[in-house]
């Protein structure tokens, strides 16, 4: 049992680090037009970050074993943050373009 938990933690850590390295690629994507806003890069950056955050909360912080209320609250925060960031990005971009 102990071993299984250890393995799981290690797997989570490796996965998170791998995603981070993928973000490095994402950030370097199309470096030549780094000066133009890019909705794809932005939304994937935010989405990947939120997925990582959720994994940290569920695995490292062990919310997956927590009472349902805490799971829901944590997920609610992730959703609120996602909606708020992506929402203000797209509304703001549409506003400044229009």
């Amino acid at each position, binding site marked *: 049992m102990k071993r299984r938990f250890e393995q799981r933690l290690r797997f989570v850590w490796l996965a998170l680090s791998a995603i981070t390295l993928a973000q*490095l690629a994402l950030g370097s994507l199309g470096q030549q037009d780094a000066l133009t806003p890019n909705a794809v890069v932005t939304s994937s950056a935010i989405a990947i970050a939120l997925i*990582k955050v959720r994994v940290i909360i569920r695995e*490292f912080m*062990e919310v997956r074993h*927590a009472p349902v209320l805490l799971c829901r609250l944590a997920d609610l925060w992730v959703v609120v943050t996602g909606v708020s960031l992506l929402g203000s990005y797209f509304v*703001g*971009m549409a506003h400044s373009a229009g």
Partner: protein
Amino acid sequence: MTTVQVSVAPRADGSDERAASSEKPGGVRFVPGQPDMWAFVLFEALVFTSYFTVYVIRRTQSPGPFLQSQTHLDLHVGVFNTLVLLASSWSVARCVQATREGSFRAALNNAYLTMLFGVVFLVSKVREWATAIAQGFSFTTDEFFSFYYFLTGIHFLHLLIGFVVLGVAVSRIRSAAGAAPELVETCATYWHTIDFLWVLIFALLYVMR
């Protein structure tokens, strides 16, 4: 220094069941650490959400200057910082696990390892700031850099508090062998919060466009 006391309030889930659950993850549901710390985490996370939202809104109002300034940040440093903090989260999670199993040697080692990663992060952050300042980018240079120093700075402050928190965990592990791991879990919860907030800061400052 005396250790901070563990909440003595009887808990609905019961610590006995939790001791059993450490052998069998996926069994009984329990709140890791004090529920009080979770209240803090959720509240503080909401405050950060509001900072992030203000940042994104300001960004979209003048995307050009923000992107221009963003090119002066080194993405590799950001990635490195993230990897270090993820590693620290991993080690603090193992520290909690070791405390539950009663292997205090391993718990202490993992706690010290976490501190080490924390120090690596601090040093790398200070170096990044020093480099930016040397290049002439200060808190007042432009709006992007104001946000950059503000977000990294307030996160840095949380990390400094994190060292106090880890110190509390270490003194608890050292002093009370066999005691309920609640306080160590509480401290770990705080530390993971620093980690996941950084993951968002990293995406917003270094990656988004």
